[in-house]
């Protein structure tokens, strides 16, 4: 079916002048970008359902380029995104090659440390679009002018969840965080969200990663013994908030806690940028188009990569330009807005270059809610109730 359409389309394009005058008169101008994914060797995830696909992020890039090119036909613009899978050791050299090649936009799918290193290495030679790292320091003390973030920050995700919990009047939290630095950073975001929205963290525990408990080790056999004991005799609480960015323990918490309390955060009700079950706001056809192309559901990294490249395409359409400097300037201006299938326009925070976006609160199979919750108002944008607002930013460009 798909093949038939492609052939037909190609036939139409070649045989009859279906394209508008502008596209045939003007030579196509190229916008070049790359997606640089830095894969760290790691253990398999707790659930085999969470095994990252080989084309993680790249599939999102392919859809974005298809979308941009379709629009580009009317604008005389052509888009490309090179796909590069690197290791922490080869990432810098791969970036150097792209910079030497004159690629002006690099979408990175890397951890915090690698993202920061790539930003600093690129300097003013390329715009970095961070489509994975969620750490708040990249938008705070370690922010960089040449870097924009399509991945939501820990603070945005934590605030999105906190608003929902406050609406539920579940304001007493039992916070369990992992022992990895990214877990500790995420736990900080939950502490901040609790203060911001008036929740109380009544108990905190740290789950040490001793290398056990994963599927590859003993799996559910040990967990059923460990988790109830680990969560025993906590102060009276409404919910368990899990801060497990490293993916060591949180999926084992639901149904295994000592007290019958819901789990939220890294398991249970999870705040994220995308969910393959989202159907509102035209998301159904977006999911359909992605699934036809990738033959799998869309992950957050695919969405965030798609968004990064769509931002470039949108800037090229609106400015009628393919010049890197002009596109960068427009993307960072208050005139910029992009539609992202989340029911409202997404815009750029000028104080830390974080893209404003709603946060989906998801369970395994559905999008249960979307934040900001209606009750939380803001003088400039309700989306700024999520994450670090202008007066509190530590970012100095």
């Amino acid at each position, binding site marked *: 079916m798909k093949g038939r359409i492609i052939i037909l389309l190609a036939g139409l394009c070649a045989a009859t002048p279906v*394209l508008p005058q502008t596209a045939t008169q003007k030579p196509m101008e190229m916008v070049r970008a790359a997606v640089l994914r830095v894969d760290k060797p790691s253990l398999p995830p707790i659930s085999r359902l969470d095994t990252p696909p080989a084309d993680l992020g790249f599939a999102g890039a392919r859809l974005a380029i298809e*979308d941009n090119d379709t629009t580009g*036909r*009317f604008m005389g613009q052509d888009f490309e995104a090179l796909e590069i899978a690197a290791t922490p050791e080869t990432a810098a050299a791969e970036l150097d090659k792209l910079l030497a090649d004159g690629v002006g936009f690099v979408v990175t799918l890397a951890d915090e440390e690698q993202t920061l290193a790539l930003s600093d290495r690129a300097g003013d030679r390329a715009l970095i679009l961070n489509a994975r790292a969620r750490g708040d320091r990249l938008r705070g003390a370690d922010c960089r002018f040449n870097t924009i973030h399509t991945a939501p920050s820990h603070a945005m995700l934590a605030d999105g969840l906190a608003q929902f919990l406050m609406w539920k009047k579940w304001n007493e939290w039992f916070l369990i965080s992992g022992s990895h630095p990214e877990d500790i950073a995420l736990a900080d975001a939950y502490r901040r969200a609790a203060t911001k929205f008036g929740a109380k963290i009544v108990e905190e525990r740290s789950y040490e990663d001793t290398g056990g408990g994963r599927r590859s080790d003993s799996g559910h056999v040990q967990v059923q013994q460990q988790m109830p004991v680990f969560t025993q005799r906590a102060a009276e609480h409404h919910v368990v908030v899990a801060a497990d960015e490293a993916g060591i323990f949180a999926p084992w918490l639901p149904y295994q806690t000592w007290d019958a309390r819901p789990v939220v955060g890294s398991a249970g009700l999870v705040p994220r940028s995308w969910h393959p079950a989202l159907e509102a706001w035209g998301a159904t056809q977006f999911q359909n188009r992605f699934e036809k192309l990738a033959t799998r559901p869309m992950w957050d990294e695919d969405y965030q990569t798609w968004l990064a490249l769509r931002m470039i395409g949108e800037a090229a*359409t609106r400015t009628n330009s393919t010049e890197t400097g002009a596109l960068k300037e427009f993307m960072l201006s208050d005139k910029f807005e992009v*539609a992202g299938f989340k029911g409202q*326009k997404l815009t750029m925070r000028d104080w830390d270059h974080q893209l404003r976006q709603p946060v989906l609160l998801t369970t395994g199979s559905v999008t249960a809610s979307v934040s900001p919750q209606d009750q939380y108002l803001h003088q400039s944008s*309700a989306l700024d109730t999520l994450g670090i607002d202008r007066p509190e930013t530590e970012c100095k460009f």
Partner: protein
Amino acid sequence: MKSISTAILTSAICLGLGTPALANRVFVSNEKGNDVTVLDSATLEVIGHYPVGARPRGITISPDGKELYVCASDDDLVRVFNPETMEETHTLPSGPDPELFVLHPSGNPLYIANEDDNLVTVVDTKTHKMLAEIPVGVEPEGMGISPDGKVVINTSETTNMAHFINSETYEIFANVLVDSRPRFAQYNDAGTKLYVSSEIGGSVSVINPETQAIDKKITFDIPGVLPEAIQPVGVRVTKDGKKVFVALGPANRVAVINGETDEVEDYLLVGQRVWQMGFTPDEKYLFTTNGNSNDVSVIEVAENKVVKSIPVGQQPWGVVVAPN
């Protein structure tokens, strides 16, 4: 309480009619219910629910009232029904994922937006043959046609353009960049204005069809409603061109615009997530589909007043009223 007031309202309407109004059938496609709810435009009662295939969205009827067309999006075809019996008579090849379409004023051909494949498909309603596939922007949705039938408009939601297509040569001769997520295109009957709604941009562009220039952008401001919730979708213009109705999605309002000045004059509270609208032939009533409250609001056009809400099926999407 609500049902009592509705009942009073309904009886008031019925009493108010000295002579029985001409009854027309109103057809509402229910996207998640896979059926069409048929209403009676005089009694404002439900006549019945009829299965029409998978994910029905766009819905329209032939000028002679003999054929009802439904985009069965997930069946990848247009199903055609006898509007009286609601029996399927035949199907039309539509291309993949048909979402919305527009009929040539003569009743033939049908121009269909294929949302997943960036195409507009042209189908002959008499021979049931596909006449052309026209590549357009990403996520084509809105379909409009000039009153003289010479220009077909398609809006593409992710490309953010209104594409002007010559209906004889199938060539795109102009592309107008509008605000984010254009959903709907509607000419006034005089053919002097083209209204294009932008769902995420929150505006309606008023385009001069001659020059393809945007003469004005209508924006909306409703006290107590978050600006993000104001998402214009469906547009309908009265035959005299004096009133333009714009459905504002999750703002749960229909805006009433002066078709001469293009200024907003009123906001009418309707059901939740209002998307598409349809007039009765006498323009006494305008029906709106409210996807989140699973009902249809009935607006009395002369009074700018919502007079009734009628429960229909699951996630009502489109609506059309029989011409006779």
